[in-house]
């Protein structure tokens, strides 16, 4: 049980996103909005991304973060939110699949 009653500010994605915003950076926020089957991160989990591709937090066990970062940079440019869906990994999409066998939906939006 690693639960503290205080926020872990140094690792908290939403605190980091606010800090980036104060530094004048462009930021995207990705949120797990739905999961099916065994998903590594619960609904509500965040990955925050800046325009250079720096990121904090997670939306999976590291399986799809690369793809989300790429899409997030697109979202920062366009300002248009995207809904991404990731399913079971197969041969054609192994780089962006979930090897755990679950499926997740990730909402990616620009901050501001």
């Amino acid at each position, binding site marked *: 049980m690693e*639960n*503290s*009653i205080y926020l872990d500010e140094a690792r908290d994605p*939403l*605190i980091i996103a606010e800090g980036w915003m104060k530094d004048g950076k462009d930021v995207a926020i990705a949120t797990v909005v739905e999961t099916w089957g065994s998903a590594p991160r619960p609904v*509500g989990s965040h990955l925050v991304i800046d325009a250079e591709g720096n990121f904090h937090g997670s939306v999976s066990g590291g399986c799809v973060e690369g793809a989300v970062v790429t899409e997030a940079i697109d979202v920062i440019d366009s300002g248009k939110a995207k809904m991404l869906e990731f399913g079971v990994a197969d041969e054609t999409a192994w780089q962006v699949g979930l090897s755990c066998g679950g499926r997740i939906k990730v*909402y990616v939006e*620009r*901050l501001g």
Partner: protein
Amino acid sequence: MDPYALKTLNAERRARRAAILVTDLGDGRDRIVREGDQVAGELGAAIAKAFRSGNSGSVEAEGRTFFLNAHLPQPCLVVIGAVHISQALAPMAKIAGYPVEIIDPRTAFATSDRFPNVALHAEWPEDVLSRQPLDSYTALAAVTHDPKIDDFALKAALDANCFYVGALGSRKTHAKRVERLLALGATADQIARIHAPIGLDIGAASPAEIAVAVLAQAIQAFRSRGLEAKDAAA
């Protein structure tokens, strides 16, 4: 996400207050709802449910799809009294997901030998609670049945609207305690919130069994937050 919503959300989270970020997945608009804010209709019902469960998720309401991201503070338990019951209660509560702090000014009781791996304060509750005030996501169990130690903490827990306030002692002991708390300025409504005798009535006999009864009662109080008010209004 609206930058103002993010700032507000982070401020609420830092202050250990519950908040839900409501995002319209159709147009991307979002807003923060604080616990206790009135929201009408199906969306309001879903928001109330999310505050109780702490679960995030999508909801269809008013012909739109909203995502509710529920941010609840980590609930925790403060135990007044480094006694035998507390020795069982501390590890049990931790396993159940409620971090524990124990306060007891009696240095013979509050030893790390008796309480390994527990946040322990061998100080008066007055001193600890002025540094670290109680809040509505904290449960307080007073188990010394020494008025000098328990009373201040009980009054502080009622004033801070702790989600659970329990006090060890028989009905007779509690009747005397009620008189003292009234003299300290507690209201009748506040007194009614104290669980005494402490713990669910499971016939607990040993200190460890009493700890189970206390923990179960605290969890029950946590998971039914806000329901009493709703019942009273209905």
